[in-house]
């Protein structure tokens, strides 16, 4: 049984109100009304009175972990987190961008979120496909059980089956369409570098112009920077104005990292991010 969006909204408002009144947190990150029903916006509540503008429906798909790094270190923040978003916050804690006791997790068990552009239900084809948050201080609805658990990496099967020429042609076509608006980078909770490597001019890693080799360097390096850190929330693909299926590449890298290093991103606070860690007995086979 899954609790309706309405009941989650009520719980969210109640909980946010309590937290703000008690002064436990200075800010609550949730969702507010957008220019119409299908387009809610991330919303920041600072006073108990702001809680009234909060809303929660099937289009509240944004990953609010993105905004945590924007506030000075140590501000007490409550954040409404769905399953994937929760893993993003855990990964930020792993990387010591925020401290565990500065964040209040308002967990939202969720099923049936919709992508406003296409109207389809968001599922494990474009995200991690998890329903219940991994970690939460308050749960705003009943845990979702009984849903079919589909591995988030099944969607890769036919891309991995492609031969490399076809796969190269596919990715070249996709990356050539990129207009370098960097929405994917800004939407990603793990991409908090400002300036990013691609903005640097000394060294010039990739050209600024939206030609294929500049786009290729930007995207491939970003995939590498997110290896073992990407929590597969799908925000980058949804933010892309030209709908480049970035989630495919991120899923592939996440799958390889899980197989090679035996650790999925953002699953527990005590893990260390995979690429700043090593095991002396890592097998050399991963290099073949």
């Amino acid at each position, binding site marked *: 049984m899954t609790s309706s969006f309405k009941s989650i909204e009520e719980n969210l408002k109640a909980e946010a109100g309590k937290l703000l009144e008690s002064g436990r947190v200075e800010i609550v990150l949730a969702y507010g009304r957008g220019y119409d029903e299908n387009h809610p916006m991330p919303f920041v509540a600072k006073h108990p009175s702001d809680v009234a503008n909060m809303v929660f429906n099937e289009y509240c798909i944004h990953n609010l972990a993105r905004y945590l790094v924007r506030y000075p270190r140590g501000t007490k923040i409550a954040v409404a987190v769905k399953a994937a978003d929760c893993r993003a916050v855990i990964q930020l804690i792993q990387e010591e961008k925020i401290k565990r006791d500065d964040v209040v997790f308002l967990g939202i068990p969720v099923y049936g979120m919709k992508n406003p552009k296409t109207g389809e239900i968001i599922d494990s084809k474009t995200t991690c496909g998890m329903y219940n948050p991994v970690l939460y201080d308050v749960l705003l609805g009943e845990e979702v059980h009984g849903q079919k658990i589909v591995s988030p990496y099944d969607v890769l099967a036919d891309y991995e089956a492609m031969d490399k020429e076809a796969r190269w042609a596919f990715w070249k076509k996709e990356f050539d369409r990129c207009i370098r608006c960097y929405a994917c980078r800004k939407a990603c909770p793990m991409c908090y570098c400002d*300036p990013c490597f691609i903005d640097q001019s000394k060294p010039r890693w990739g050209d600024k112009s939206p030609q294929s080799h500049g786009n290729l360097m930007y995207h491939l390096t970003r995939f590498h920077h997110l290896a073992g850190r990407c929590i597969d929330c799908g925000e980058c693909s949804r933010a892309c104005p030209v709908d480049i299926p970035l989630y495919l590449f991120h899923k592939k890298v996440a799958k390889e990292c899980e197989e090679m290093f035996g650790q999925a991103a953002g699953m527990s606070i005590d893990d*260390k991010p995979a690429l700043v860690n090593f095991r002396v007995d890592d097998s050399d086979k991963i290099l073949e």
Partner: protein
Amino acid sequence: MSRIGVFVCHCGLNIAKTVRVSELAQFAATLPDVVVAKDYKFMCSTPGQEMIANDIKQHKLDRIIVTACSPLMHEQTFRKVLAASGLNQYLLTIVNIREQVSWVTHDIEEGTAKAKALLNGAVYRARLLAPLTSRVIDVNPDVMVIGAGIAGIQAALELANTGKKVYLVEKNSTIGGHMAQFDKTFPTLDCSACILTPKMDSILQHKNITMLTSCEVSEVKGFVGNFDITIRQKARYVDHGKCNACLACTEKCPGKGVSEWDEGLVKRKAIYIPFPQAVPQKPVIDRDSCTFFKKGKCRLCEKVCEQKAIDFDQQDTFIQVKAGAVILATGYDLMDTKPLIQYGYGKYPGVYNALEVERLFNSAGPTGGKVTMRDGREPQAIAVLHCIGSRDKNNSEHCSRVCCMYSLKFAHLFKEKTSADVYQFYIDMRAAGKGYEEFYNRIIGEDVKFIRGKGARVAQSPDEEGRLIVEAEDTITGKFIKVPVDMVVLSPAMVPRADSRDIARLFNLSTDKQGFFMERHPKLAPLSTMSEGIFIAGVCQSPKDIPDTVAQANGAAAEALTIVVKDKMELEATTAMVNPASCCACQNCVRVCPYGAPFFNESKGVSEINEALCKGCGLCASVCPSSAIIARHFTNDQVLAEMEGLMEF
């Protein structure tokens, strides 16, 4: 725009044979920013070097490319040439066209083409070279030696004699370490105290040495040249300043404590000095056995002490010590043989371990040098069992190197002091040191019985009361042998101190499986460690005998001296630095650096790099997502430019 000078070397025929050097020079002249392009027979020769120096002045060159042999050969030579002619020594790039081109091909076309590509890469890189000045930090001249066994004492004396101030830190209440417990030392059988106490005394008298006994290291901060170490001075309840070592208190004291120094064979007073020649020869009070601390009354020693040196409410104090280098000589312990139930140590009183027997022989020991067993009898038959816990997968896989020799010494001393038959149960007699084999032959001559077979079991003799049976297989005859003896001596494995891993963590060292400190390189750098400025000597690195320990102590003293002899220290120039504008505070660099050079500046919210600790490997530069870290001399754009140049043709 840079003004690059390219100098191609023939190296006699070594290069010229398979690379058209003049054509290479002409090719260089055509490249952008190249102002001078010459080739010469021997660039590394004096005329060759002068040619470079002159061209620098004459053409006002600001980048030099030497196309010759491997940078590992002559990079330093040509750097000196640049420095001599007023150009920053890092504005130099070496192109290796000998080891990696001319010597590995016979095809002159292929060789020349590759040389051109490598040269082109060097030109791209040379344009982006930046002058680097290595920072100089001042060095604290003092040295700290931790552990005052023979290793620590020897190192401290060597350093103090050069005029350096030395802090000698010892956990026990006296210096001397295990060697002070011995009676004789192999192979010369000279008395351990006779060769050690003079050194202990000169430590006491030496104006440059500050002796810190009953002290432990509690915290280590800083880096090579500028260590800031906190020492915990454990409370001794005796003010050593006032005490004139009349030792009246030790006679009156009713307290009874187990004497660690005598390996528990005998009791000692609560206020005591471990052994007569102890340095400092001033007593300390052991809380656990002092009746005042236990029951709140007595204070006899206080009444008796004319100097009023007794102070029961003394507390642990902390001493801050600054040092330029640190030598660890923390020594070893013998393995606890109680878990090896087959030998019955701790169960049968007739079973002793090596250190206990050393105390028996020692004239200052519990029995005044007489070999009498715990029940007062003089043993008629004694068995010495080798390799107890050593060379054993289930305990310590290493060979402890010295037990064969001290077992032979025991045999000699037993023969000399008693009329007992002595058996040695051994696997291999390892007598490889100077004079060792001769000592072994001498002992064989003294009618000691050698049984080639590891002792398998020690059991109580069923018929003779108080006697033990050593069971083993004499592998030479293949017979099962049961030897009735009165006394069994075990030669246990030498293992690192129980707290060796904590000390390693304090000084950022790694330890091997057993817990011995890891040297930087087993063959070429056995005394230095991965942490710059921290040196190791003696058994804390691996089991060894006294001659090797002393040699290592001298070596470690010399290496420490190389740091503290200069009051300034030049840091490597090719270290890394953080550009704060681009740092996104992800702290990847802090997590990966093996030397702990980067640290997170909480107030500024960015990472910074302590250039004294940085070794210039560049790991942090490659894990930095926003490439905010500049690895000097191997910056991102220098490497990218070189790659671009290499791939152009």
